[in-house]
């Protein structure tokens, strides 16, 4: 006799048929495994004052020394900052920042003297800092074409839509396109050391190595690099410079390996800052090779800011064709600074992290004490050992 059983499927009332071997009754009994019976071995911490106490103390004890260490490290970093925006009448740069006194043929230069109280050892990093400059504006951040910057010929000729309205000018593609490139910082900063004997020595500034290695070598490439006639001018033929630029992109730097898209100033600028007040690495002052002398000894220095003409062809009417003397920050209440800084393993000078560690460590320690009190006052009754009594 063929025995087959006909079962209503439990879930959706669906009828299924178990085959003709249904004579052997297979038990539906669930398996007795730890997983299926939800008996997996487990660690079951119970958060009470007593159990949590050690954690607080340990965190406190670890954090406070770290914080102190960080704080000390940060304090050892030397930093100097000069604001050269020229907002005040007294400021040496006031004249250059005003439109009227500016003559388009001669560059406007302002000279700011400053005094370094301490000698700066090893490499000194020279930054320019801008504030109130919203490089992180959503539309600004997007306004670039990475393919173009990577040397892609088609993107060079046909910039991405993201670059609009800075993609074409006079029916020519802009290279590099986009608002970021267009607004590139173009003040020229020069440093002079005023020798105690009165001579003014220009400090050599290196503009190589200021950008990320990967940016310079992978992300940014000049168009037509591999081709026979390695001429940037021909490579960029058919394109036009960004509106605000004075020179085309292939004339940014005369140095062979720092021109075009791989110009490091350009690359640094293209890395949009996270916050409206930011600094960007401008130059590096290499420490003297003998290492005996500090890179920048204590003394008087002069910062010379050379304003290169920028032709602001903003499409806005009232600003159209107006000539801007300097890098324009006044319209948005921005500030321009020059910063000199040494760096340590943890970067630039920033005491915050050290303070934070110390604070959090102290708070933990304090809370640990509070918990200890709580534990002693109330915790004993709750101690599980006492339940059994």
């Amino acid at each position: 006799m063929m025995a087959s059983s006909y079962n209503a499927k439990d879930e959706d009332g669906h009828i299924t048929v178990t085959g003709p071997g249904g004579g052997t009754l297979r038990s539906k009994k669930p398996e007795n495994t730890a997983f299926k019976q939800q008996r997996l071995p487990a660690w079951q911490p119970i958060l009470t004052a007593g159990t949590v106490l050690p954690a607080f103390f340990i965190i406190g004890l670890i954090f406070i020394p770290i914080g102190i260490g960080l704080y000390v490290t940060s304090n050892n970093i030397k930093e100097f900052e000069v604001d050269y925006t020229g907002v005040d009448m007294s400021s040496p740069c006031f004249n250059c920042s005003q439109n009227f006194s500016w003559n388009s043929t001669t560059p406007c230069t302002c000279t700011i003297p400053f005094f370094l109280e301490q000698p700066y050892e090893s490499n000194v990093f020279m930054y320019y800092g801008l504030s109130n400059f919203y490089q992180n504006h959503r539309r600004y951040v997007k306004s670039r074409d990475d393919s173009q910057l990577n040397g892609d010929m088609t993107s060079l000729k046909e910039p991405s839509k993201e670059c609009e309205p800075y993609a074409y000018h006079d029916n020519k593609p802009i290279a590099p396109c986009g608002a970021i490139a267009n607004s590139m910082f173009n003040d020229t900063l020069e440093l002079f050391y005023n020798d105690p004997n009165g001579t003014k020595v220009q400090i050599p500034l290196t503009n190589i190595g200021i950008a990320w290695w990967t940016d310079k070598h992978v992300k940014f490439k000049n168009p037509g690099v591999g081709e026979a006639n390695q001429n940037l001018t021909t490579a960029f033929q058919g394109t036009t410079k960004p509106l605000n630029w004075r020179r085309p992109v292939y004339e940014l730097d005369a140095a062979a390996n720092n021109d075009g898209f791989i110009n490091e100033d350009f690359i640094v600028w293209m890395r949009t800052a996270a916050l409206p007040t930011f600094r960007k690495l401008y130059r590096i002052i290499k420490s003297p090779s003998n290492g005996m002398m500090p890179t920048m000894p204590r003394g008087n220095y002069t910062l010379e800011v050379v304003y290169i003409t920028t032709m602001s062809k903003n499409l806005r009417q009232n600003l159209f064709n107006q000539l801007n003397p300097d890098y324009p920050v006044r319209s948005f209440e921005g500030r321009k600074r020059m910063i000199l800084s040494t760096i340590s393993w943890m970067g630039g000078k920033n005491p915050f992290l050290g303070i934070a560690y110390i604070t959090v460590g102290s708070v933990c320690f304090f809370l640990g004490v509070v918990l200890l009190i709580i534990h002693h006052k109330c915790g004993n009754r709750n101690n599980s050992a006492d339940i059994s009594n």
Partner: protein
Amino acid sequence: MARDSEDPEMTKASKVKRQRKKKTKDNKTRTVHANILYDYSKGEENPNRHYANNKIKTTKYTVLSFLPKNLFEQFHRFANVYFVFIALLNFVPVVNAFQPELALAPVVFILSVTAIKDLWEDYRRHRSDKEINHMDCLVYSRVERRYVEKYWKEVRVGDFIRLRCNEILPADVLLLSSSDPDRLCHIETATLDGETNLKQRQVVRSFFDLDCDFDPLKYNGVIECEKPNNDLNRFRGYILHRSGRRDALYKENLLLRGCTIRNTEEAVGIVIYAGHETKAMLNNNGPRYKRSKLERQMNVDVFWCVIILLVMCLFAAVGHGLWMFQYGDKRPVFDVLSPEGTDLSPIMSAIYLFLTMIIVFQVLIPISLFVSIEIVKICQVYFIHQDMELYDEETDSHLQCRALNITEDLGQMQYIFSDKTGTLTENKMVFRRCTVAGVEYSHDANARRLAMYQEMDSEEEECTSHGGTLPRRDSVTSHQSARVVLRSQSTKSHRRTGSRAEAKRASILSKHTAFSSPMEKDITPDPQLLDKVNECSSQMDFMRFHSQPMSQLPSDLSDIIDFFIALTICNTVVVSSPNQPRHKVRMRFELKSPVKTIEDFIKRFTPSRLTSGSNNSSSSSLITNRSSNKGCSSMLSSPSAESTLTKLDEERQHGSLPHAFGPVPPYGYDRNAWNLEEGELRYEAESPDEAALVYAAKAYKCSLVGRLPDQVTVELPHLGKLSFELLHTLGFDSTRKRMSVVVRHPLTDQITVYTKGADSVIMDLIKPPDTGNSKGKRQKKIVNRTQNYLNLYAADGLRTLCIAKKILSKEQYACWLQHHLEAETAIQGREGLLFESALRLETNLQLLGATGIEDRLQDGVPETIASLRKAGLQIWVLTGDKQETAVNIAYACKLLDPEEEILTLNADSQEACALLLEESLHYIQAKFLCSSADQTAKAFHGHFAPFDIYPSSSPSSSSHAAPFMVHRLGLVIDGRTLAYALDKSLEDKFLAVARSCRSVLCCRSTPLQKSMVVKLVRNKLKVMTLAIGDGANDVSMIQVADVGVGISGQEGMQAVMASDFALPRFRYLQKLLLVHGHWCYSRLANMILYFFYKNAMFVALIFWYQFYCGFSGSAMIDQWYLIFFNLMFSAFPQLITGTLDKDVSAETLQQLPQLYVNGQNSEEYKPYMFWMNMIDAFYQSLICFFIPYFAYADSDVDLFTWGTPITTLALFTILVHLGIETKTWTWMNWLSIAFSIALFFTVALCYNASCPTCYSPSNPYWTMQRLLQDPLFYLLCVITPVAALLPRYFYRACQGTLFPSPVQVGRQLDKLPAETRRNILSLSRVKVGSPLSPKPPFLSLNKPSPKGCNKKDQRSFPSSKTSQGPVSQTDNQSRRSPLGPTDSEKGLSDIYTLVPSEIDTLPYTKDAPPLSEEPQPPSTKDSECPDKTLETSNLSLSSWITSTPLHTQTDSVQLNLPHNGDSQCVKYTRNSEERLQSDHTVHPAQRTEQVAEQSLHTTL
């Protein structure tokens, strides 16, 4: 008669034929022709071509329709539409925030996950469809002129199929031929309705007389029947032969798809409905979808999230507008113009930005939440399925979750509505006692035997008693109480009486049929009654041999024999032999159909028949001579049965019977012999009580040996086998509440009606005794006595049935038959006519006796109820049983406590009901006002413990919310009163009364009332309700409740089909609710909260950034991280925690049911918790944002090099947050967290190395790699999560110490070594300090004596005078003594029957000896109320059964009643439904005096 209407029918049929040609679907009927007449089954002429074929397709989609259809379905969910909208918004250039394609990713991911799930389910359906479609069956082939194997899917309407034994029916088939000599076919319908008994189906009448095999080629009929419908119990139609003969078709002719052919070698039928039109398929509903409470709550918070989102977007938009505005005309260089070079006004920018922000912040609405919840729920369901403790070995069934999405509701139940029969009880009926002709046979020996079963059972089980229940064996005296106690101890089913192996075998056997357990089968007969039976039958034997008329038999003896004959034959029990249970024992003497026509009747009832019988020479309808026995046994179909029967005969001949005459030893009564004999016949009954009665009769040697459609054979002592010609069977229906058989008595040759039914119905149908003669007086006495015993039985919790008979004269019968036949052949309204016909027959009955059947409690029911109650669940029992039975079962299962007061509401009219409710309310308020106030006060003074053993007295959420306290009161209400109480005007009052009672018992309630009660409680009280039941009558209740639980018991599968969860036993409810419910709830609640937190925290990071990017909608978090953060990086740990986290172990949860309150009060997820989580999320995001902000302030960091650490920090913080919230750390938790972190870094590293020019605008080439070289990054990763989570961690620690929740205490208990914990839990109840108490007594132990509880209770009821204990005890006693009857309550407006029941300790104490007093069902006593305008008879009596020793409270009833004094009567009645005795009524004046006295004491 059928012939009369032939012609019109014929024309109609032909008309139908014509119509069919036009459009078949217009018809109300379906016409089926045999396919054999047509060339091809699909041919043009084939009239059946319009009907669905047998190929089933339950899949929702086809290859082509899948995508559109599935998408369409998915877009019904609002969230999906929302996310798609946002993704599409991204394609608008002005507002887009992300790469449009990328923004689509999450939506597509979610949609495709769901789609794949649907696809997989559909594929499963497809596979099973295919499997079913390709099953084989035999179909008659026109070409080959034989039956050929075909696939099921090839079967078409009109095909002839041959079915063999144990085959499954491929379609709905009209039975045309059967190998069975009776033209029967047995089918098992377990897959359809779950009923495990065999059902008989008959061959269509016109094919009945075929001698040879059915030849399809000769078939020439046309079948006209109903359109396909889903009513399994209805099929109507007729078959039209070419000869013009027309035969009605019934459901008895239809074999349904999915059923299995049993007991029948071969059957042939024609397919009527195929494929999706079969009744089985039409009944096939998919799983149900409910929305759980938690999900509703969650949706509210999702809504809040939307609000938060909009507020944030608005804020950003306004901010952006202002930011733009401050620059005025001077547009800064970084404010890029629109692509067209045009300038945007600040307002326009703000509007665009608003949309952009919605895109950026979309993560706030947790897109993956819905998917995650579904995944977690599926896992939870899986684990519930896998729980070994929810697996029933006997039935090899485990819990089924039929609704997949309300698991967490199980942890939030507040009210349980339970059916009684089959849910609380086994639905295994055991015959306990009976009364015949007014004499009670108490069956003491039987009771002792049952007790012994228990003892054996409990000895067999090693002491696995539940911790809490301590043996109280000494406290009880009667064996029945002992049984109760013993049963409560044994955790195993009593059915496992024999060895395990035997039980196993039995369970395998009983898998398909409802065979009774040995306990139900062997019944020790009452010696007295047995003597009488023997005496009686020997006398009858004697008289038969001496040809004396049977009427000379003394009436008490004839009643006895009639009683047993009625027990034996008035049922639908099928006899089968044990070795081949599928084959019935055939005891055929005569092949004859039931009386179908008048002519037939006249012909068959000619006197000549009596002597000669019919043409069948070897047998006659009167089997009286023993010699013929051999002849008949030779006709047995099964050889084994044959031999056993022969043996049986011989045994009897050798005088094995006479020893029954001797005094019967209590249980030594030939057990072996009985067992031997009993092993030979099996009874398969549709309802277990029928089988119990048949077995009972068999114990008195009056055994059913064979049943055929027209004949029942009964074996009686001395008389041998008697075969009763079965003229009619009027089946049981719930309206009539009775069934009858019409037989011709072989001895007296009278046409006798035996009726068996509910006592309330039968008693009304008893012929009013003619008090004139002695016979009438005797009848009256019998009726009165029987009624008394019935009350007694009911008080014992037995199910009572009355047995009556009626002798019809030939004329009466003929008259009735005429109408009946008309009714039977009617097509329209046949059911109604048959019903009326039955009513006509069942009148003027003569009462024979009554039986008491015990429906045994299921294992562990009292414990389960106790523990569910401790868990703060209100348990209501809604039953169709009578009040007394229900009350007693309620006592037995500890639903009602003997110590608690019981309010009984029985009213006859709306007004009375209103009054009654009013009174009850006043009473409750007055009585408990002070005590509850005091209780609350106490609670606030620190004595209150949330872990009180009676959570009813603890302020649960409901009692906080409302002025109602739950008191130690029980409410009993009957169906009629319930109907009044459920009226709109009274329902509030009813609820007010009911909710203050600890337990509510609704008796005599209809299925509709059950569902109305559930609906009322659910809607008005706004509580979570669970309904549990096993029968079809519970379906509506199950569907109405928030969670419906079906018991997959014996009453069929309807309840299971309607339910959300199906349990094998009631006691599994405990683990399901207390453990799985709790877990599911707390897991999901925590997971949902965590989800909200996680998303808010992540999104807030971007929000803070808006302040530093000119509200431009910029994000420092790379869009990839932003979009995949939820989906990938943080998804797994929370799923693992949501699935596996256990806050408290299963053991502790079961031992401390109080922990369940956690879920009831939604303590894991309260509305404020959402906001707390939000605040925490904002705090944490502030930390996560500003620590990196300050750390990188004024540095040369670029946007995404700064954003990536923030993402990492957020991930760490979120994971550690989860870690704080995780209570159980298994290796899976560790693994999932490790995996998450690893996944993030792997993805980040790969992503950041993959493409130097892609992923505009972030273009994060080499960012992560650089960061990993930066020590600052690591420093940030350490400090930020610590700082962010410090408050939460600290709060958790403080909370765990200062004000631990009960759950936390439970967890601490978990930590203890096993023995210690067991000691604590078993010794006493655990108290947990309330947060309000100044000195929290965290886990303090009380003295483990039960007295402690009592004392506590007394303390909590300060109004009750503890000192009065003994006094009022005696008072109670004295009250019980019958006092003179009084009639003076007439004319009093309010009548309160204060009926102290005898139940002082346990309801069973009064079982064995019949008490001098009857039990006291509150009678419906008419009373007049002159001072009220109510109708006299309407205002019926209300009665308050105060069955408790809480005497002082009883007294205070009187004190606090509004109308006390003269208008009031207090009486003690022993009343019963026939209002015969008001013997024990206390004189009202006396009573009031007493009360006044008592009240004096009370007030003093």
